[in-house]
């Protein structure tokens, strides 16, 4: 079965004088190399320069708060059961009297962890969430040297309370939910 037209048949025929001289082949090869100096570069200088990404790009998750700064997540576990990579784990806790301004419902996630190395960024957690708590954002997960640093806890997932610490979820915030 032929898969491509670019395949070359390898032969063991004896080389001609031109080929045996090697020098013309080297010159030809260097010519190709030099010609690339004058072509447009395919790479960009990230992070100074960034490529445009789709508005529905799925990157680093965020756990949203409501307008009053209370966490939306109630640790219902639907994201974890929807997750095909089993990247999400959580521990629920009961809200104590006096914490009403921190958590929206009587139950909240005391521990919420996403293993970013397991995550395949499919967005099913966002789809499963009944509380509009988890969203995938256009932020790219930074690189790191240690595996344990890729287990993101609530410190890296929950957005801040002040206006400048809020994380915009762009078109994902509510737009696709209106269809239901």
């Amino acid at each position: 079965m032929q898969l491509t037209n670019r395949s070359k048949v390898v032969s063991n025929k004896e080389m001609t004088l031109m080929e045996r001289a090697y020098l013309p082949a080297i010159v030809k090869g260097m010519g190709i190399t030099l010609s690339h100096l004058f072509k447009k570069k395919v790479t960009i200088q990230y992070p100074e320069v960034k490529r445009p990404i789709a508005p529905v790009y799925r990157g680093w998750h965020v756990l949203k708060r409501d307008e009053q700064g209370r966490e939306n997540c109630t640790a219902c576990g639907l994201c974890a059961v929807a997750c095909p990579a089993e990247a999400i784990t959580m521990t629920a806790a009961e809200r104590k009297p006096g914490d009403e301004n921190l958590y929206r419902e009587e139950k909240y996630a005391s521990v919420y962890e996403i293993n970013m190395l397991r995550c395949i960024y499919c967005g099913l957690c966002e789809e499963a969430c009944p509380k509009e708590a988890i969203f995938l954002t256009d932020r790219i997960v930074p690189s790191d040297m240690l595996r344990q640093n890729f287990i993101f806890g609530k410190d890296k997932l929950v957005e801040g309370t002040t206006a400048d610490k809020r994380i915009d979820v762009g078109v994902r915030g509510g737009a696709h939910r209106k269809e239901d």
Partner: protein
Amino acid sequence: MAKVTIDGHTIEVPDGTTILEAARKIGGAIVPPAMCFYSKLKTSGGYCRTCIVKVSKGSDKDPRPMPKPVPSCRQTIMDGMVVENITSPEIMEARAGVVEFLLINHPLDCPVCDQAGECHLQDLGYEHGKAGTRYEFKRRTFPVMDIGDNIKLHMNRCILCYRCVKVADQLCPGRVHGVIGRGDVAEISTYIQNAVDNEMSGNMIDVCPVGALTDKTFRFKSRVWFTKPVNAHRDCDKCCGKVTLWESGNEVLRVTACKDTYGEVEDVADGKPGWICNTCRFDKKNITDWTIEGPRKIDRHSVISANHYLEQKALKMDIKMQKLLGEKAHN
């Protein structure tokens, strides 16, 4: 003996059997759902109306149809009766209406509720496409209450099925809880929060079809679908000692009675219902207290079996069934 036809299936049952019991003898999808009826509790049923069916022929002697949908948990069969349940579109519509009524005051807080995943009201709402609500008015609300040391009562979620009252009546001598108030303000209460301390009182958690009565020792510990159910037993002088343990790793998070397909407590060897005592339910949370028998079979369509491996045979059967249903829908 009387002959009854339910959705085209004919069965002969003893006189005095209710339509629901006859349907359960046939089994499968034609069994009407029941929120308040509980075969192991005497005088239960007749409150919720989810089990309504159409009787298109009263009996051989009097073949007139019954003028209204009848609750199948209370209506006894007559010889030659013809009953329609899922084959009758008007019954399905009426039942969807009943579900909507049950959900009127229900807070729909499934993400918080510990019953989610094994809740009959959730299943019922889902099956009838009533996962949302049209109700715009203020729902009745009650504060969360402790009934005894180990039971939490969320009156908001209650649908007043009276099952727990029957448990208190029939299993716990000297009952201390019941329904107070009437109509819209009726509520399950212990009356001045008297502690329910009877040894069998924990069974009201098992009979509750919604998340109104929940186990305080399991409160917010885990979602049911993250726990692994196993059959286990121990020697108990107060009850049968046959239970289902809900484990996470090697930790026993919750102990419940063994429940059958209809969410009712299974009979144990001597033919009596397998109610379990509070010691087994709340205090024996160590895996060494129990003799493990093996994994409990859970319906594949339940969320509890999500992400769990299946038996090869069950999987094959299921695929065959799905294919058949698909072909039927196609034709």
